[in-house]
């Protein structure tokens, strides 16, 4: 089985994101970029499945700017076999990403698609579900435990009520949650090896996905500043303060 893992280049989770002065987006110049952390977990899971003999090949794919090669190289250094970048400098919205992935999945004849449950930049949480619908295959989302048994996958899902165990037939789409695994550290010799692994760069147009943006962003604003708290001297003062606020 071939596993296809989708990865997105996003602003690093340690970086404090700022809205640009015009309010048309966030500042990306000179800002550290990384693999979307959920996608990194997906890469790790694919590698573990391969190491357990449940898959033969792990292919990582990204749709994004030329610089997304860096993130694909990181995935190759973790252990993925090869990488493909469909280069698109403009923003790709979730439905367009799902349609693009459908083309790639079919071209690659993948048996399993592993994706992060959402990207930490737009937090859309849509691509995996949309891809499963377009592909007309089963989906297991928010997965925190995954096992292959023959032609089915046993997946534990993190749902509002707790945990849910389901089985899905392969081929399938799986989106992964935070607790599924802890990605490995990249080793220095593997970074060297990754430089020699295949990384194909193709124009996005080659996928034949023509999609005008479905969503229009009105404006970007930073969250309102929190007002500082105040200290009160006594319980009576606290009660009075709450009454003044109309809480009591």
């Amino acid at each position: 089985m071939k596993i296809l893992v989708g990865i997105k280049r996003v602003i690093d989770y340690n970086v404090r994101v700022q809205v640009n002065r015009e309010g048309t987006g966030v500042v990306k110049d000179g800002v550290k970029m990384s693999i979307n952390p959920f996608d990194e977990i997906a890469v790790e899971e694919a590698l573990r499945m391969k190491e357990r003999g449940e898959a033969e090949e792990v292919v990582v794919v990204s749709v994004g700017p030329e610089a997304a090669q860096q993130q694909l190289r990181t995935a190759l250094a973790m252990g993925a076999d090869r990488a493909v970048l469909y280069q698109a400098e403009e923003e790709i919205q979730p439905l367009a990403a799902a349609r693009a992935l459908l083309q790639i999945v079919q071209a690659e004849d993948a048996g399993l698609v592993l994706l992060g449950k959402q990207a930490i930049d737009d937090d859309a949480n849509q691509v995996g579900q949309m891809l499963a619908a377009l592909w007309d295959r089963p989906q297991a989302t928010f997965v925190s435990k995954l096992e292959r048994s023959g032609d089915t996958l046993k997946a534990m899902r993190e749902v509002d009520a707790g945990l849910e165990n389901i089985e899905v037939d392969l081929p399938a789409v799986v989106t992964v949650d935070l607790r599924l695994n802890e990605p490995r550290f990249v080793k220095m010799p593997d970074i060297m090896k990754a430089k020699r692994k295949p990384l194909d760069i193709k124009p996005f147009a080659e996928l034949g996905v023509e999609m005008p943006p479905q969503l229009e962003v009105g404006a970007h604003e930073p969250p309102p500043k929190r007002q500082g708290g105040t200290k009160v001297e006594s319980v009576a003062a606290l009660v009075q303060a709450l009454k003044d606020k109309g809480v009591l």
Partner: protein
Amino acid sequence: MSAHDEGIERDVMEYDYAIVGGGPAGLACAIRLKAKLPEANICLLEKGSEIGAHILSGCVMEPGPLDELMPSWRDNPPAICVPAGTDEFRFYTRQRSYKLPTPPQMHNAGNFIVSLGELCKQMAAQAESLGVEVFPGFPGRHPLIDGEGDAARVIGVRCGDMGREADGTPDGRPGDNFAPGVDIHANVTLFAEGCRGSLSKQLIRRFELDRDAMPQTYGLGFKELWQLPEGRTTPGLIQHSVGWPLDNATYGGSFVYHLDQDRVYVGYVVGLDYADPRFSPFEAFQQFKHHPDMRALLAGGEIIATGARTIIEGGWQALPKMDMPGALLIGDGAGTLNVPKIKGVHQAIRSGMLAADHLAAAGEPAGYDAAFRASAAGEELRKVRNIRPGFNRGLWFGMANAALETVLGGRSPWTLKTHSDWDSLNSLAAARAHDGQAAMAANWEAERSLPPRDRLASVYFANTAHEEAQPVHLRVADTSICATRCAEEYGNPCTRFCPVGVYEMVDDGQGGRQLQINASNCVHCKACDIKDPYQVIDWVTPEGGSGPNYQTM
């Protein structure tokens, strides 16, 4: 090497040259080496999560050495790069400021205000395109030394392990994701760690490189990037000040560099030889920002980024021997910064290039120290050698001495002594006897109106992160003196000199006090390693990729 290393199998990678540190010195050396020796295998290690993540500098750069190294840099300038405009030098009092003549070393015509972090990213891209292997996220942890006594030779560097978990022992134990650091073996290893490098410190001691040098001396610098309301800045304007809030005896001053797009770099540098243990460099910086001149500039603006880093100030007479068997110290790892110019970048680049030229010609480290001292970079340091030590006798003596030394052009027949910083503190009792800056600071916090609220609010803008499970990388050899001897003698100055509040004295639950180390706040400035009056704090590299994530700093 610790007992923990027994039984751990490590990959060994062989290189012709290994460079520890991705700042201007290391990157300049890598680029120049590859240009001179295209066949050489060269790797460069950087402890930050990416190149530039741990770079913090003013920074007004003299472009000459970079022009020579990378002539094309001006065609593709770093994200922040503003040609220097007018220079201003002022003396501050509590409410007013007075224009002083700008010292000749501080004239900046032809220079550039740059983000050094961004510039380093471009230098790294250049190095990689030439074939240098650049490894961000991989700290050097131990120098590898072969042989004993006079036969001892540096043969490379051991990278830090990943995935160690704290267990009460200094090095912790391997966790589930443990990945041992590789051993890098190289014909020559170049240590370009910047000010107070943790491996350089070990090597200076091991090879007695400072045997003929005077004590090294340091400053602690703070920097903030502000976005201001429209129309307040003059792009290219370079402002420096001395005076308030520091007293006459304390060395230091401010910088304000006006950028484009209504942004400014605001910073403050304090000599770490200050004497009052109650003094807080961070508070001094915040006080400075509340001077009427500064408040008018900053009020209503917003902080984009903050950071802190020590600066090496010993200059010519404190410069250790820069070569040893198998290795070189370059840049501020050795101490090539020019203090009167308040510039180190051009000197760091020169020292890196010179190291490459020397190695390409001589094939071995021996002789680099002499070559550096005889070079233009060495001569630049020698000429200004007496200026910083003159300030040991106060601001006004220092300024008069600086003027004299400038007129003499370094031809004075004497060399003033430097002194170490860790033993410069007066006792708490002596400090209380005469009221210093600390008393002013104590009454002052209430009226603060500009952000950040405190050190924790400030470090938020440094994007610093350390995996919480890892062993503490600030090794305090003896914490028993914190609540007793140190509390009595100096009142735990670590709780004030640390720019991000790593050190705290907390209730020990038994009616006493104990030291708590908030290691995850650390921005790798090294002030604690330098200023701790008992010299029991040892700063070591944490897990790779830990530390600040400076952006456009």
